[in-house]
């Protein structure tokens, strides 16, 4: 690894391999993860580019063509108000992906900082901070989100924040555990010795070294947030009509499924395929990044 001790006679240069390169190599070998990742990329592009080509707006109603089965003009059919279902599924996918990503980031930021500070400070601070996490852990948080949204009205920003704010607990625990063991390492002592301030040590030295588990946990948070949003939309608490999300579309489809089932089938399939791919990608990332799993 270190070039200082490498003898000159070593003719061929051994290319250094980082955790990330290693992980990328392992991830590429996992066929299901690659398939999942590819599907997600295709879905993201399709959901943003697709609406430009369908020729309909997501809220454009045409009551003469209400509840039509799939046809050449409407590839996935129309809903009871005559809105093009394909366009709505594209928009709904966009919203669901955005909610997953943004709430995931919110929970990631809170959890990482909280966990890193608790682990780095240690002692009483750590005790108190982790006790708070324990207490919050046993809250029926879905109810709190419902209360929060019922109290402050349904805005999409609040939705991101509320969902993100209840998902950070596990991230905090994982990061704290990592930081506890990392902070005794020599490179942290060196940083302290040259007078780096605590904030600098946390941001520049500790957090970058916990990125592996953070990425893995992030990949598990995104599908669960998407699911939560759909759950809330199903209850009428998520994204507001006429704007669609996958959950809202499924809810609407389920209400009419005995008469026109295509309204349920297409958003349900997209939702299941999206979660399926995200879960496979998450599993693949875990296997690729988690050194403990290597022996498996």
């Amino acid at each position, binding site marked *: 690894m270190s070039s200082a001790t490498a003898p000159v006679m070593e003719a061929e240069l051994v290319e250094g391999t980082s955790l990330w390169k290693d992980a990328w190599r392992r991830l590429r070998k996992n066929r299901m993860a690659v398939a999942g990742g590819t599907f997600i990329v295709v879905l993201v592009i399709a959901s943003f580019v697709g609406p430009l080509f369908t020729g309909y707006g997501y809220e454009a109603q045409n009551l003469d063509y209400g509840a039509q089965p799939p046809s050449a003009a409407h590839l996935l059919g129309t809903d009871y108000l005559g809105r093009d279902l394909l366009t709505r599924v594209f928009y709904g996918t966009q919203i669901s992906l955005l909610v997953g990503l943004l709430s995931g980031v919110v929970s990631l930021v809170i959890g990482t900082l909280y966990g890193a500070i608790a682990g780095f400070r240690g002692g009483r601070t750590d005790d108190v901070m982790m006790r708070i996490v*324990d*207490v*919050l852990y*046993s*809250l*029926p948080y*879905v*109810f*709190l989100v*419902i*209360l*929060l949204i*019922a*109290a*402050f009205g349904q805005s999409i920003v609040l939705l991101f924040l509320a969902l993100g704010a209840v998902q950070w607990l596990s991230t905090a625990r994982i990061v704290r555990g990592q930081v506890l063991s990392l902070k005794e390492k020599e490179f942290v002592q060196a940083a302290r010795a040259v007078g780096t301030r605590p904030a600098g040590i946390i941001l520049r030295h500790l957090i970058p070294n916990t990125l592996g588990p953070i990425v893995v946990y992030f990949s598990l948070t995104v*599908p669960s947030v998407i*699911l939560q949003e*759909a*759950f809330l939309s*199903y*209850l*009428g*608490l998520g994204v507001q009509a006429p704007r669609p999300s996958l*959950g809202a579309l*499924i*809810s609407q*489809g*389920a209400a009419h*499924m*005995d008469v026109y*089932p295509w309204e*349920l089938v297409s958003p*349900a399939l997209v*939702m*299941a*395929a999206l*979660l*399926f791919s995200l*879960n*496979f990608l998450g599993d693949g990332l875990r296997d690729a990044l988690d050194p403990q799993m290597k022996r*498996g």
Partner: protein
Amino acid sequence: MRRFLLRRVLSLIPTMLVIVTIAFVLVRVAPGGPFDSEKAIPPEVKADLEKKYGLDQSIPVQYLSFLKNAIRGDLGISMKYQGRTVNEIIADGFPATLAVGSFALIWALLIGISAGVIGAVRQNTAWDYGAMGFAMLGISIPSFVLGPLLVLVFALTFFWFPPAGWGTWRHLVLPGVALGTVYAAYVARLTRGGLLEIVRQDFVRTARAKGLSERIVIWRHVLKGGLLPVVSFLGPMIAALFTGSVVVEKIFATPGTGSYFVDSALNRDLTLTMGMVVFYSAFLLLANLAVDIAYGFLDPRVRHE
């Protein structure tokens, strides 16, 4: 063991207080009151109503009197369903919610553990891939997708089960399966992982070396330790099953408590909302406590921490 128990029971009190306080604050800062209906009520009547429910007093006084009554088990009178106490509403609805949740829990454990054991015992065979593929599929199909699909197939096409309603055991099956399948999938993955972890350990090799049959090795030695991850997942799972039943009850028109949760919050039915929060939280915390105690018995290491 006694100290472990005592500490766990005592820790319920601050948790419960935090929940109640957060909920109380959220409910009170929400704009709009329970008596702001479209029909304008004369101000005197409104004032009378507010006095009756103690809304004319200061927030801290309301908070303390709520706590005092809740400790005595009195959750007050609903503000929307006038004349019905919150206790009555919960007592009417909760049996149905409990029945669906319990069915889902048993379904999840039965299917999940079986699939997980098959996957672990026949690791890297078609059986394993099949079981884990199904588990992945199960995780990806949320209850509100599975529910309508089950109705479409088993109620509206084959007529095996009623599509909605309540009354016989047949009404339990579809909601229970819709609710429990996702967790069956999680349990399957946890079981498989837990068993594979234990199978690698020395005491299992010893058990095999002394000539025990594979069946006894699995049943007596591996399962006990291998199911620990499932036991620790029971707490979150019970919480998720009972909160998740809000949606399933809506799909299957189950006369449970689920619908009250959302409706009461949207209606600003302050007493019913608080009552639901207190009741569900207490139920979930006690379920968690039971799981922790069970875990303490199964894994002595926890008790001595």
